[in-house]
Structure formats: structure tokens, C-alpha cells
């Protein structure tokens, strides 16, 4: 018995020691990736620190290139790849899955390493996040900085308006009531609630609103959208009424970037934002604030979003291997927990939530759990082929609704017509 186990131990030990050496023979020394900065705070310093730690542990140098918003990063990455000088991997919107697949530039995980080990690792991610990675039986990206949309509210303003800060609105009706009590037009003017309506974010907000009436905006294959469904029109109409009838939110376009500053300087009592902004707001708010799940027509419902790690085909096998190792590093329980605490993004694996660090953090700061609790009632972000184009079609029409240029029914019909035109080549065969 003992002899066998000792031999087994020797063999096992030798194998474990040999494995990194064998692996090292195959992995690259230096890789680079594009990284978008989508939330406030010293994100670049955190990412730099992770890269340094990764290099200390594995000897592989990872260089992050900060490239602006999600949209800008997508443009830059694809431009670079088409120009023959592209990054090896990149963090891009999870919803870009189908577009990127169509361009033929992605390397699915199964093509890099198809061991049982990898399969088990992939199985540990939350299914809600994996939904944006799976297509055609393969995994095309790794969830990294994922979020759900939540809203932040100013508890002091709630109390002052006679609302209970511990019972923030959970339904549309409650939202309207609260908004009307909070909106002030004279003196120190402020809005009851602000939502982002700019190009690049409006579709995310609308995805949440649609889910709040129980409607999905697209099919899983990414070839069809359902913008002019009666439920979608109902969601759009509610949004319009918030601005024009109930007057609790501004008309016209509100930039995503101004939401957090407006909240922090008291121009907005509630903002529909992302959990990724949680730490930023926590550090900069000079008042008591709360976090809650987005109100649904009856009960809270929301949308997931955020970025995944995509590995590109233009990287050679050694570089892809290195990129995969980095992906495993940043999604390991310890790093994922650290990322969650320092930004507010959700840790993408359950084992991260079980680490002592995250348990302690959520115990002393319960709002950090709000976003996670919303996962069961969250739907995926709008994701189709020719994603950016469909976004543009939808967002222009949403903006038309919110500026009063078109009624909701007309705008949604127009958006549907244009999206149909864009997606037609993908529905054939």
C-alpha cells in the first residue's frame, strides 16, 4: 500500500513538475491585448497590477493597450487585425459574439485546448454569462468583466421626499411615484431618474426595459430581432412616458458618461447604471446611497452586460496558449474576487464568491450582492450578426422616441424594418 502510494506520489509529483516545463516549451513569452475602459476609477492600475503578477508567476509578459470605449476598442482591434498587426486577445463586449464569429477572426477555446481540465473550468462559469460565449457547439470567449444593470439611489433625497430609503421602487408604478416626488424643477433642479440613451448604451437600457415586460429582443442564433412585438412597443412607450408624461427623466439624449457625475453632484436622485460603477460611486459619494435591482413591470428584472476575453486567430498556437493561461489566471477565484471588490463587476464564477475575501466584503457591504441576486431575472444583452449596425438602427429610433420625433409604434416598426434588412443575408440558409 505505502509503496504503491509512494510510487504514485513520485510519478504524480514528477508529472506535475514536468507539466509546466512541457507547457513552457509551447507558450509564448510576450502577448498583448486591447482593453476598453468602460467605468470610472483607476481601472488601468488594477489591470497593470494583474499583468505584473501574472508575469511574476509565469514569466509571460502581458501588455495591455488601453483603447477607449467598448465601441472604440472593437474598431481598433478589428482594424489592427485586418491590418496584420493585431493584438493576441482582447476584452470586447460579450454581445459581439456573432459579429466577430462572422468575421472569422476568433479562435474558439476548444481549438486551443480541449482537455477535460478545460471543460471543467468552462463549466464553472455562471450560465447567464456563458450564454454569450456559446455558439455552434463551441466556446468563443471567456467571461471576464460582467455586470448586471442596477440602479443607484440617493437615500438622503429619498428620506427628504418622504420615501422609505429601505424600500426603493421595485415596480414601474412605484418608480413613477418615487420619480415624481423626487423630481424638482425649480431651485436646485434635479431629475427623479436618469437612464443612458446615447449611441452604444441605449440598446442596453432598452434590453432591460423589454425584459421587464417579459420580452426578449433577439433569438439565440443572432439572426432575428423582435423590435416591433407589442411587448417591445409597450416597453418603448413606457420609456417615452417617463420623459414626456410623468416627466421624471429628461427628454433627448443622456450620455452614459454623465450618469455617474450627475448622481454624485446631486442632479439625479436615481440612475440606471452598472454594478461595475459600484466601487467608483462608493468611493466618491458624499452622501448615503443605496443599490437596488431595476424595477420591472411587476417585479425587478434586468439585463446582463460587460466584456469577455476573446482570443484571436492571428495569434500563433503558442500565443493562444499563453492568452488562455492569462484568461484562467484572471478568472481564478482569488483574482476574480479581487476584481469584484475593487470595481464592482460581478465575479464570473461561483467559486470566487466562496473565497473568504469576497465573503467578508459582501458581509460588510451588502449592496455588492444586489447585482448577483439579479442574475436569475437577467437576460442577455442584444446580440446579433452585424451587431454594431443593428445597435445603430435600434438606438437611432430609440433616440427618435425620446426626442419626440417619432411615436413609439412607428419608431419600433422602423427599427425592425432596418434590422430585418441588415440581417436578411444571415437568415438565408
Amino acid at each position, binding site marked *: 500500500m505505502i509503496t504503491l502510494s509512494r510510487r504514485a506520489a513520485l510519478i504524480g509529483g514528477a508529472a506535475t513538475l514536468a507539466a509546466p516545463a512541457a507547457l513552457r516549451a509551447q507558450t509564448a513569452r510576450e502577448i498583448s491585448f486591447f482593453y476598453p475602459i468602460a467605468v470610472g476609477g483607476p481601472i488601468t492600475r488594477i489591470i497593470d497590477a494583474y499583468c505584473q503578477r501574472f508575469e511574476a508567476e509565469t514569466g509571460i509578459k502581458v501588455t495591455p493597450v488601453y483603447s477607449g470605449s467598448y*465601441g472604440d476598442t*472593437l*474598431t481598433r482591434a*478589428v*482594424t489592427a487585425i485586418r491590418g496584420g498587426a493585431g493584438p493576441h486577445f482582447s476584452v470586447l463586449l460579450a454581445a459581439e459574439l456573432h459579429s466577430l464569429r*462572422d*468575421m*472569422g*477572426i476568433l479562435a474558439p477555446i476548444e481549438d486551443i485546448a480541449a482537455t477535460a481540465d478545460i471543460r471543467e473550468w468552462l463549466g464553472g462559469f455562471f450560465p447567464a454569462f456563458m450564454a454569450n460565449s456559446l455558439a455552434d457547439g463551441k466556446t468563443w470567449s471567456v467571461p471576464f468583466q460582467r455586470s448586471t444593470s442596477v440602479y443607484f439611489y440617493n437615500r438622503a433625497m429619498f428620506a427628504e421626499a418622504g420615501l422609505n430609503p429601505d424600500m426603493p421602487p421595485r415596480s414601474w408604478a412605484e418608480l413613477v411615484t418615487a420619480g415624481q416626488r423626487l423630481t424638482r*424643477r425649480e431651485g436646485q*433642479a434635479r431629475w427623479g431618474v436618469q437612464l443612458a440613451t*446615447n*449611441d*452604444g448604451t441605449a440598446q442596453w437600457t432598452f434590453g432591460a426595459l423589454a425584459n421587464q415586460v417579459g420580452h426578449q429582443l433577439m433569438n439565440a442564433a443572432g439572426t432575428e430581432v423582435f423590435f416591433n412585438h407589442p411587448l417591445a412597443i409597450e416597453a418603448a412607450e413606457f420609456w417615452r412616458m417617463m420623459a414626456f408624461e410623468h416627466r421624471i427623466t*429628461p*427628454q*433627448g*439624449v*443622456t*450620455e452614459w458618461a*454623465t450618469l455617474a457625475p450627475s448622481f454624485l*453632484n446631486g*442632479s439625479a436622485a436615481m440612475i440606471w447604471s452598472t454594478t461595475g460603477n459600484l466601487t467608483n460611486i462608493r468611493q466618491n459619494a458624499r452622501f448615503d446611497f443605496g443599490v437596488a435591482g431595476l424595477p420591472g413591470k411587476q417585479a425587478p428584472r434586468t439585463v446582463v452586460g460587460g466584456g469577455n476575453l476573446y482570443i484571436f486567430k492571428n495569434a500563433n498556437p503558442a500565443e493562444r496558449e499563453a492568452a488562455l493561461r492569462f484568461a484562467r489566471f484572471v478568472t481564478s477565484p482569488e483574482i476574480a474576487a479581487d476584481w469584484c471588490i475593487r470595481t464592482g463587476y460581478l465575479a464570473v464564477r461561483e467559486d470566487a464568491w466562496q473565497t473568504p475575501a469576497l465573503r467578508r466584503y459582501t458581509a460588510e457591504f451588502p449592496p455588492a450582492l444586489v447585482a448577483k441576486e439579479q442574475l436569475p431575472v437577467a437576460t442577455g444583452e442584444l446580440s446579433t450578426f*452585424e451587431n*454594431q*449596425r443593428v445597435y*445603430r438602427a435600434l*438606438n*437611432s*429610433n430609440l*433616440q*427618435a422616441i425620446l*426626442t419626440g*420625433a417619432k411615436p413609439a409604434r412607428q419608431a419600433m416598426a422602423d427599427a425592425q424594418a432596418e434590422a430585418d434588412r441588415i440581417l436578411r443575408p444571415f437568415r438565408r440558409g
Partner: protein
Amino acid sequence: MHRRKLIVFFAPSVAAERAVMRRTTLHAWLLLTPALVLLFAFTHYPAIATFWHSLFSTPRANRPARWVGTDNYLALLEDPIFWQAFWNNAIYAGATIPLSIGIALAMALWVNGRLGGRGLLRMAYFTPTILPMIAVANLWLFFFTPDYGLLDQVTSTLFGWGPTNWIGQPETALGAMIAVAVWKEAGFFMIFYLAALQAIPPTLYEAAAIEGASRWTVFRRVTLPLLGPTTLFILVNAVINGFRLVDHIIVMTRGGPNNATQLLLTYIYEVGFRFWDTATAAALTLVLLVILGGAAGVQFFILGKRTHYR
């Protein structure tokens, strides 16, 4: 005088002269070639290539490009966003050109005259030209933010207006972009006018004064005509900028809200580098080239003839 006669006297024979001419021609071509190569490579060739590529469909991962003839252009004609970009650009150019030239002329006249604090004024007028548009766009973003933005603070203090979403609503968004463009350009044109004004001989003004002409008549009959060539030169620049100056739009409104600030060049960038629809982008580029070429033709042939040169 004498030296020239001597040279003529010792003029070489016709054959030698032709040899000199050939050598000069060769030299001329040698001097020209580097510049010509670059110009052709990055202006003329791309223009032709654009036209060629606009006759094919956009190549995708599994669908190579195929000949479609005028399909891309027909699709453009049916595209409401193209038409909106077209008309927006017409309004944008139509507003920025006269405004920037007019304000530049006023600035030059003021700075050239005997107003107090001319040096400071000149610097103030020219500063926007030096600042990178990208940098300024962010500052203007603050100016235009509703409620606590500077413009709203001013309008609410002076006129008691409520918050206006200057760049977030279609009615005012394009006007706001025009304002930023004029602000950026006028100072640059002012320098040209200033140089031209200072080159007008004072004797002309003295003669006019002797004849008892009023200030307005002097301006109309003496100054303006002499500024003709400068105005033409500035007009060329202003027209080009009316289509080229889109940096602030890309940063501030990205063509929104609902395409209210979408111009031809921003649409080209979006279609070509966001949607990767290179064929449509090529067709759009050609439309823009035709417009610019037409404008150039008008300016050089028609207006050029009517300008007074000394």
C-alpha cells in the same frame, strides 16, 4: 543689361540649346518625381481605387467580393441616413462658410484698427486654431451639458431659461456643432485677412479720404475688392473644412441624436470602420469626392475670373 546682351551674343547653337532644354526638362522631372509619386499614391490612386471598389460588394469571411455595378449607389439613394447626412452636411457647410469668413473679416478689421488691447484680442481670436479639436471637444461637452453646463448656467442667469439639452436633441445639436466649427476656424482665416489688410498701401486710403468718401464706401470700394484674392483663398479652405472638420462630432455626438449631426465624413468613418462595409464606404467616399470636385471647379473657374488681381 550689358551682361544680358553678352549672354545673348554668346548664345550657343540651336542644338546645344535643345540639349540644355532636354537637360532642364530632365532635371525638372527628377525634381518632380518624388512628390508626384507620393501624391499619386495617396490621392489619385485611392480616388480611382475607391471608385473601382464601389462597384463590388463588401468581402466577408466566407463571402468574397462580387461585381454589383451600381447596386451600392442605388442602395445609398434608398438609405434615409445617407440623405440625412447629405442635407446635414449641406447645412453645416452652408452655415460655417459664410459665418467663419464674415467673422474672420470682422476680427481682422478690428485687430488691424486702433482698438485697445489689440495684441490680446488677436491672441484670443487665434487660440482656438491652435488647440487640438479633440481637446476642445471635451471642454465644449461641458459647456453644452444641460443644467450645470456653462451655457445653461449663463442662459438661466441672463434669460431665465430652463435646462436645454443642447447636443442631446435634434433641433439644436447641429447648430451646436456649427458653433464649435466656426469658433475653431474664424481665427485662422483672420490671420490671412490681417496679412492682406496690412499689405494694402495707405496711399489708397489717403486718396479716398481726400475725396471725402465715407468709411462704409471706403470699405466697399477699396478694401473689399483688394481682399478678393484672399477671400477666394480662404473660401477654398472653408469649403474643404465644411466637409472635413468632423473631429468634434466624432467625440461629442457621434452623429446623434438620431443622426441629427451625421455628416458625410462621419458616416464614411462609421460605415467603413465600425460596420466594416467597405463597399458602401467606397460609394459614399466617391459621392463626397464628386461634391468637393464640383466645388473646386466652381471656385477656380467661375469665381477666380471675377476676382480682382493687382
